[in-house]
């Protein structure tokens, strides 16, 4: 096995603490990094949202200029999807999946860290655009020709293209990592059909990431080539085709929305099940339905292009295919309800979010079916109806689900429970604010209000609803503020959480201390069924049965290379925009680090049994 394990250098003080976080390859720490960075970008995206709603509070408002408005909507969408939602999903996947499958870390800890830092520096590159005054303004969908240099000559769209390419590398690496982890690192006895639903959802989501992101990469590269190297992919005068961009973008873009929602489905399954004290109803159906949703998700991309002019045959086929996805989704909703049926439901803050998810997401889903009908979509497309739909599914669905997961797994990540009262206040203000903001937008669209409009004329019937929508947004912001206060207040409390603080934990992560020790499991557990921890508890056991003896635990070494590699890419991003020599230098830094990583093998280090006892394996 590993020939030359060595001890890890740990440095004292603030710089030691910083070095620890910059070099960590521990999935638990990386999860926290994703949560903090994702949270930071979520706040930025949220401020952008507030500015949008403030501008639209009344007709012909001049809170921001039209140019700035287009920049704000572009950055809001891009930041929220790529830099807030996805990272927080990765945060929970990192924090939870290895624990749920009884593993000590992910398959590629170094790559895991690399995935985080590339995401972070890609996001940083994109948001630095605000500081330069050259901000992308062609929408998060960046359709050409508006996004080409002919109509967007400043560097805004370049920041978009380069920032997302770098961030996208991180996502792809994360997807590969979790697929390999779930395939290869499950504890003995954990067959695929004994995995928790969140792990299943993570697995399928990772597969979606692996197959969807490369399409985005090609699109972004083609646009970069057009903008920076005078290529002609999207230059109509040189034989290019703007509809090609739409195809490539949505080939990625549609699976992306399933990447966003499937983890939330996984969270809901876990939280509802735990707080009903019942196993998930129809587990195998749920697994199958999730796989079907992912598979179908690759077949429906052109429903974003019904008005582009693809013709009736294409429109009809994509309509039917899109409607089909409602079936497995509906199956999941009923299985959640039947999980609660006959159960003993406890209304914790986490469970409130999970329960709130169900009707909200169903509303988003049904407007999705409405949009699926191409002839009707001729009216809905590019109007506020669509804006309402996707916010219902992404914010009312995904973000609500993330709040459920964050409240649920906070003790496992941080050793403390978030304050329940504040959590419930967050839930009510955020949820009511959400519905106030977005429900009226369905009607705005149907009354004839297009989307991405910096303002609107008076006397069209839009005024009152826009006002209501803005008030709702302010209420949502208040809810988020309450959550932030909750986080701060909680962090000041001592770490008192037990290993199974909700008392009804069903899955493996609740069998170990909160927060989890560095090595996760002192002994890899033996899995004897679905809901492995619950099974042991019901048989009167206080611990999992071990699948191996106590012994030295081999851990991967921390490394600064992921950080440096990401800095190299970051530098090259600027280089591509301003100076190609700098681009070369940035890429050279990254390649050098790859070479170093290849040449200097990491043999890791060991945590000896004596150290394990000291780190405190507290029985349940």
């Amino acid at each position, binding site marked *: *096995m590993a*020939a030359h394990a060595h001890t890890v250098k740990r440095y004292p003080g603030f710089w030691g603490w910083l070095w620890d976080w910059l070099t960590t390859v521990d999935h638990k720490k990386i999860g926290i990094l994703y949560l903090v960075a994702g949270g930071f970008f979520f706040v930025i995206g949220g401020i952008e949202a507030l500015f949008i709603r403030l501008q639209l509070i009344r007709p012909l408002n001049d809170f921001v200029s039209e140019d700035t408005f287009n920049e704000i909507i572009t950055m809001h969408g891009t930041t929220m999807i790529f830099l807030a939602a996805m990272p927080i999903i990765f945060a929970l996947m990192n924090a939870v999946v290895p624990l749920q499958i009884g593993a000590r870390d992910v*398959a*590629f800890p170094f*790559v895991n860290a690399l995935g985080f830092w590339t995401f972070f520096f890609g996001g940083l590159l994109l948001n630095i655009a605000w500081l330069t005054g050259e901000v992308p303004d062609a929408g998060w969908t960046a359709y050409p020709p508006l996004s080409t240099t002919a109509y967007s000559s400043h560097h805004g769209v370049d920041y978009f293209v380069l920032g997302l390419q770098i961030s996208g590398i991180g996502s*792809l690496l994360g*997807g*590969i*990592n979790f*697929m*390999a982890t779930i*395939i*290869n*690192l499950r504890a003995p006895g954990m067959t695929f059909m004994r995995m928790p639903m969140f792990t299943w959802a993570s697995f399928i989501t990772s597969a979606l990431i*692996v*197959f*969807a*992101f*490369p*399409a985005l*990469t*090609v*699109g972004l*590269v*083609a646009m970069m*080539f*057009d903008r920076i*190297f*005078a*290529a*002609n*992919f999207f*230059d109509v005068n*040189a*034989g*290019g*085709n703007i509809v*090609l961009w739409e*195809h*490539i973008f949505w*080939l990625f873009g549609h699976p992306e929305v399933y990447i966003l929602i499937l983890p939330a489905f996984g969270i809901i399954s876990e939280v509802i099940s735990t707080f009903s004290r019942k196993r998930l109803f129809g587990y195998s159906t749920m697994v199958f339905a999730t796989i079907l949703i992912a598979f179908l998700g690759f077949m429906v991309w052109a429903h974003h292009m019904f008005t582009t002019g693809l013709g009736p045959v294409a429109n009809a086929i994509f309509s039917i295919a899109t409607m089909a996805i409602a079936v497995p989704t509906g199956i999941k909703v009923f299985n959640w309800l039947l999980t609660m049926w006959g159960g003993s439901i406890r209304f914790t803050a986490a469970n409130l979010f999970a329960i709130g998810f169900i009707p909200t997401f169903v509303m988003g889903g049904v407007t999705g079916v409405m949009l699926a009908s191409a002839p009707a979509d001729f009216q809905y497309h590019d109007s506020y109806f669509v804006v309402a739909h996707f916010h219902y599914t992404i914010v009312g669905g995904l973000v609500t689900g993330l709040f459920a997961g964050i409240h649920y797994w906070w003790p496992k990540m941080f050793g403390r429970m978030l304050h329940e009262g504040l959590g419930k206040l967050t839930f009510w203000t955020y949820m009511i604010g959400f519905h106030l903001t977005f429900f009226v937008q369905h009607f705005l669209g149907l009354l004839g209000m297009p989307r991405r409009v910096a303002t609107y004329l008076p006397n069209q019937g839009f005024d009152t609803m826009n006002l209501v929508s803005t008030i709702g947004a302010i209420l949502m912001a208040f809810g988020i503020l309450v959550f932030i206060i909750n986080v701060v207040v909680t962090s000041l409390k001592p770490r008192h959480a037990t290993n199974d603080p909700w008392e009804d934990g069903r899955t493996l992560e609740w069998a170990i201390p909160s927060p989890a020790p560095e090595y996760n499991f002192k002994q890899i557990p033996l899995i004897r069924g679905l809901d492995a921890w619950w099974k042991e508890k019901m048989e009167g056991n206080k611990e999992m049965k071990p699948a191996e003896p106590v012994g030295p635990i081999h851990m991967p070494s921390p490394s600064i290379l992921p950080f440096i590699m990401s800095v190299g890419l970051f530098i090259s991003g600027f280089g591509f925009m301003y100076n190609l020599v700098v681009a070369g230098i940035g890429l050279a830094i990254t390649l050098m680090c790859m*070479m170093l990583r*290849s*040449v200097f*093998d990491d043999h890791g280090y060991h945590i000896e049994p004596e150290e394990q006892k000291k780190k405190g394996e507290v029985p349940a």
Partner: protein
Amino acid sequence: MSAHEHAGALPPEPEKATLEGRNKILGFWLFLGAETVLFGTLFSAYLAFRNSTLDGPKPEELFQLPMTFIMTVALLVSSLTSVFAVQAMHRHKTGPMLGWMAVTIALGAVFLGLEIYEFNEYAHEGHRFTTSAFSSAFYSLVGFHGGHVAFGILWIGLLILQILRKGLTVVTAPKVYVSAIYWHFIDVVWVFIFTVVYLMGKV
């Protein structure tokens, strides 16, 4: 550690003997899945622009099948030699393994050299990256592939040096195996390029 025979201590399939090795192989196959979608998208773009040559030379006028055929043979044979390298690895014969790896990247360099010559010719004939949508798509697809070949040559070259230093172990074996899978992949992509771009371009 010497570079020569490391008899006895190595298991039959050294690349799969450790969990790390098996993880690397699985992870790499998944990465190739992503690369398949990447090249697939590039192919789609190319097919969309096959006829958008504007004033530039058309595919029938440009492509020189004899030279492209030689490039194809070089790459196909290099795939074969990389198979031999892995077979040598399984027999724990480090010397022959390194030899076959060297032949592999030599053939890869031949391929790349000819491709650079080819692009140079095209540039003189008025077929440049910026000429038309067709040319942008052509150079992006074929150029990305060439970039992959170049990276592969550097990677396998680096591995040869590493193994000369560290020898064939359960740590270095997975690297060889994975690089061989990579090399086969770019060979398969080339077969598609040869067919879709060059052969179909001449029709």
